[in-house]
C-alpha cells in the first residue's frame, strides 16, 4: 500500500513537472507559427499606398524588424509576467479580448455542450443498447451526419429555415441593439445570460436566450456526433462486462441495468472527452461564430488574422494553449486518482 502511494505521488509530481516543457514547447510553436506567416501589421496597413522604403521605415519605428530571438525573449518574458500583450490593429489589450469575446464564446460553448450532452447521451445510450438493430443504424447514421455536415452548412440550413423562411428566430448577433447596449452599460461578467440575470432584466434575458438558440444548436450538433459514438462504444463494452451479467442475473430489469450500471460507467470517459474536445470546440466556434455573426473569440481570431494582427492572434492562441494544457493536466490527475492502470 505504501509503495502504491509512493508511485502515485511520483506520478503526480512527474506530471506536474512535465507541464513546464509542455507549456514551453507550446508557446514556442505558437511563436514560430506566428512568425512563419508572412507580413506584419505595418505591411498590411501601408502596403499598396507607400513605397517599400517608407514601409520599412515605419516597420523600424514600430520595432517590427527586431531580431527574432529578441522578439521571442520579449514574448516569453511577457507571458511569465502575465502580460498577454496588446492588439496591434485595435486600441485594446489581449486581456480585454479574452474577457469580452471569451465570455461570448464561453456562453455559446456551454449552451452547445449542454445541448450536445443531452442529445448525444440519449441517442448514444439508445443505440448502444439496441446494437446492430435498426435503431443502431439510424442513430449511427445521425452521428455520422452530424460529423459530416460542416458547421457552417448546418448554420446556413438553420438560417434558411428558421430565419429566412419561417422568421421565428434571429440569425445573427448576441442580442438586439438596445438589449445589447443595456448589457454593455450594466456589465458584470460580460456573460450576457449571467449579466441579464444579475440585473434582473427579463427582457434582456429573453432576448439573449433567443439569440443563443441557433448558434448553440449548430455548434452542439458538431459535438453531439462525438458523444454518440463514445457512449455507444462504451455502453456496448460495459453491457458485456461481468458485473452487468451479474446484475442481470440478480433479476434487475434491463432498463435499470442500462441506467444504473452501464450508463454510469460509460459516463466517466465521456466527461474525460468533454475536456479533450476543447480544441474541436474552438475550431467549431470559429466557423459557428462566423456564420452567426457571434461576437466571440473565434470570430475575433479570424478578424485579427485577416488584419494580420499577429499580436492579438498570438495572445488569443497563447491563452487557448494554456487552457488546453491545464485541462489535460486536470484530466490526467483525476484519471490517475480514479484508475490505477493509468500510472506507469
Amino acid at each position: 500500500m505504501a509503495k502504491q502511494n509512493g508511485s502515485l505521488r511520483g506520478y503526480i509530481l512527474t506530471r506536474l513537472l512535465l507541464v513546464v516543457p509542455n507549456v514551453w514547447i507550446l508557446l514556442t510553436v505558437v511563436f514560430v507559427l506566428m512568425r512563419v506567416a508572412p507580413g506584419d501589421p505595418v505591411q498590411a496597413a501601408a502596403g499598396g499606398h507607400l513605397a517599400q522604403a517608407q514601409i520599412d521605415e515605419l516597420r523600424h519605428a514600430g520595432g517590427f524588424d527586431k531580431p527574432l530571438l529578441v522578439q521571442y525573449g520579449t514574448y516569453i518574458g511577457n507571458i511569465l509576467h502575465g502580460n498577454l500583450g496588446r492588439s496591434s490593429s485595435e486600441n485594446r489589450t489581449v486581456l480585454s479580448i479574452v474577457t469580452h469575446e471569451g465570455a461570448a464564446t464561453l456562453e455559446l460553448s456551454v449552451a452547445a455542450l449542454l445541448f450536445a450532452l443531452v442529445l448525444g447521451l440519449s441517442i448514444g445510450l439508445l443505440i448502444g443498447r439496441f446494437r446492430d438493430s435498426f435503431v443502431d443504424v439510424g442513430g449511427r447514421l445521425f452521428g455520422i451526419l452530424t460529423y459530416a455536415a460542416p458547421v457552417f452548412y448546418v448554420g446556413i440550413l438553420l438560417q434558411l429555415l428558421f430565419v429566412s423562411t419561417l422568421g421565428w428566430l434571429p440569425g445573427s448577433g448576441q442580442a438586439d441593439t438596445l438589449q445589447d447596449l443595456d448589457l454593455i452599460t450594466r456589465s458584470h461578467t460580460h456573460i450576457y445570460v449571467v449579466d441579464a440575470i444579475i440585473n434582473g432584466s427579463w427582457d434582456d434575458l429573453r432576448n439573449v436566450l433567443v439569440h443563443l438558440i441557433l448558434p448553440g444548436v449548430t455548434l452542439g450538433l458538431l459535438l453531439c456526433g462525438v458523444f454518440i459514438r463514445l457512449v455507444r462504444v462504451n455502453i456496448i463494452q460495459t453491457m458485456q462486462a461481468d458485473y452487468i451479467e451479474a446484475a442481470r442475473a440478480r433479476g434487475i430489469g434491463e432498463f435499470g441495468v442500462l441506467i444504473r450500471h452501464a450508463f454510469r460507467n460509460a459516463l466517466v470517459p465521456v466527461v474525460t472527452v468533454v475536456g479533450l474536445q476543447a480544441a474541436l470546440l474552438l475550431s467549431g466556434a470559429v466557423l459557428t461564430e462566423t456564420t452567426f455573426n457571434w461576437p466571440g473569440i473565434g470570430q475575433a481570431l479570424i478578424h485579427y488574422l485577416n488584419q494580420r494582427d499577429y499580436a492579438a492572434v498570438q495572445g488569443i492562441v497563447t491563452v487557448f494553449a494554456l487552457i488546453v494544457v491545464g485541462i489535460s493536466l486536470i484530466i490526467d490527475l483525476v484519471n490517475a486518482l480514479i484508475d490505477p492502470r493509468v500510472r506507469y
Partner: protein
Amino acid sequence: MTVSQNLRRSLAPVREARGLPKWTLWVGAAIVAVFVVMAVFAPWISPYRFDQYQTGGGVRFPKSGRPSGSHLFGTNVISTDVLSHIVYGSRTALEVIVLAVIFSLLVGVPLGLYSGYFGGWLDRVLVLVMDAMFAFPSLLLAILVAVYMGGKFSFLGAAFGGVMSAALSITVIYVPQYFRVIRNSVISVREEPYVEAAQVLGAKPRTVIGKYVFGNVVQNVPVIATLNAADALLTLAGLGFLGYGVQPSDAAEWGYDLQRSLEEISSGVWWTSVYPGLAIVLLVTGLTLVGESLNDLVNPTLRRRRLLPVTIADTAEGEDL
C-alpha cells in the same frame, strides 16, 4: 513477407465481412465511387465548365438564377452553373484529399516508425512537438500554413498551385495523427516475440522495420487514411469558407461556394448553398462509412474486450478536427 502480401492480409476481413459492416462498407464505397467518377470524367458529365458563364452563342447565364431546365441546380452569384461547380468541385476535393493523405503518410509514417522503433531523445522531442501541434486548434494551424503557402506554387499553374497549397496546409494537421498512431503501434509490435527474435538473430534495424514492423503497422493505415480523408475534406471546406482555401478563379470549391452563398440566403436564394453543402455531406459520409466499416472489420476491438481507456483515446484522436 512483402508489402502486397501484407495489404492482402489486411484486406482479408473485407472479403469476409458479413452483415451490417459489409452493408455500410458498400454503401460508403458506392457514394465515394460516384464522386470519383464525377471527378475523373468531369468534362463529360458536367453540363458546363465550372467557369463557364455564357452559352456557346454568347448569351450570359443569369446571376443567381433559379433552378431551371438549362440549369438544374440554378446559377450562382458569378453567373456560373451550380451543378457544374458540384461536378468540378469533386475534382478539386479529391485532388486535395489524395495529396493531403499522401503527404501526411510520407511524413508521418517514417517519423512514427523511427520514433517508435529507436526511441531516444529525438523521439521525446518529436512527441512533445507533435503533441503541441495536436493541442493547437487545427483549423487555425491550417489557416496559418495557408497564408504562408500563398502563391508559393504558382509555377505549377494557378489551378494546381492552389490545390497544392491547400493540400499542404491540411497535411500539417494530420502528420501528428499518423505519427502518434504509427509510433504507438510500433512500440507494441516491437515487443512481439518474432521481432525480438529477428533482432536477436542479428537482423539490421532497417530489415526489421521494413520486413516485420512495417507490415504489421501498415494495416492500420487504410482505416486512418479514409477517416482522415473525410476530415481533410471538412478542413478544406472550412478553409474555403473562411477565404483561405483554393481561390475561386483557380477551381470550383464547395466551401468557397458556401461562403459566397451567405450573402444571398437572406434574399431567399437557397440553391447556391443547399447543393454544394449536400455534396460535402455526402462525400464525407461516404468516406466515413468506408473508414468506420474498415475499422470494424480490420480492427474488431469492439468484439474483443480491450481496456477501456485505450479505446477512448483512439476514438477521440480519430475524430478530432
